[in-house]
């Protein structure tokens, strides 16, 4: 599995170990890992916590597809990612994306591309809880209740 969802806090060291284990031994010269953390502010508003809701079946298949495409597009040995679901406190890791390659450029490019694609394509929704008002879904048009 190259794309996972986790309702438990992410362990960056375990993610990193899983990535390196996907690459042939000794082949990876550069490993790039991205972690998205819950920030205390967004668009000028004070954020207290987040929720991520995933459409599990499609998120897993689309996430895996992104990882497959990253391996086709870049000269990498391995790419994988894990996305959190559920309620997250400030500072917790929302997403981890890693790429391992013979050369560092491909590792950076693949990690960045895979992250952008996960954010754009994988059906996972973010709800921000604010200090100054009701929680809102992020980056979606408002729908009247």
């Amino acid at each position: 599995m190259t794309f996972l969802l986790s309702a438990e806090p992410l362990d960056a060291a375990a993610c990193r170990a899983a990535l390196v284990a996907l690459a042939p031994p000794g082949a990876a010269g550069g490993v790039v890992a991205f972690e998205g953390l819950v920030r205390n502010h967004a668009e000028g508003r004070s954020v207290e916590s987040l929720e991520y809701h995933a459409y599990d079946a499609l998120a897993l298949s689309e996430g895996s597809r992104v990882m497959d495409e990253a391996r086709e597009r870049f000269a990498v040995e391995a790419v994988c990612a894990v996305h959190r679901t559920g309620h997250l406190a400030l500072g917790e890791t929302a997403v981890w994306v890693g790429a391992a390659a013979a050369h560092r450029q491909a590792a950076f490019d693949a990690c960045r591309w895979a992250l952008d694609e996960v954010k754009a394509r994988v059906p996972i929704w973010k709800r921000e809880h604010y200090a100054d008002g009701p929680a809102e879904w992020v980056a979606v048009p408002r729908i009247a209740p």
Partner: protein
Amino acid sequence: MTLHLLHFSVFRDARGCDAERVETDAPTPLALCAELFGAAVPAQPEAWARVAVNDAFAGWDVRLAEGDTVVFLAPSAGG
């Protein structure tokens, strides 16, 4: 026919539940969206949202069949 629906994000808020079974004659996701959400959803959902049928992305004018699972996908913001 009977369809299974899963709701997420703003569609869940509008519908008030995570999942439901509906009896409908809506032939396509586009017609189903209008039937379920009406004016509670911005017009032309095909312009701002996606739809999945049976856990795969699908077109808004695909033919729905008995027992299909349909999910309307608001723009997501993972990460």
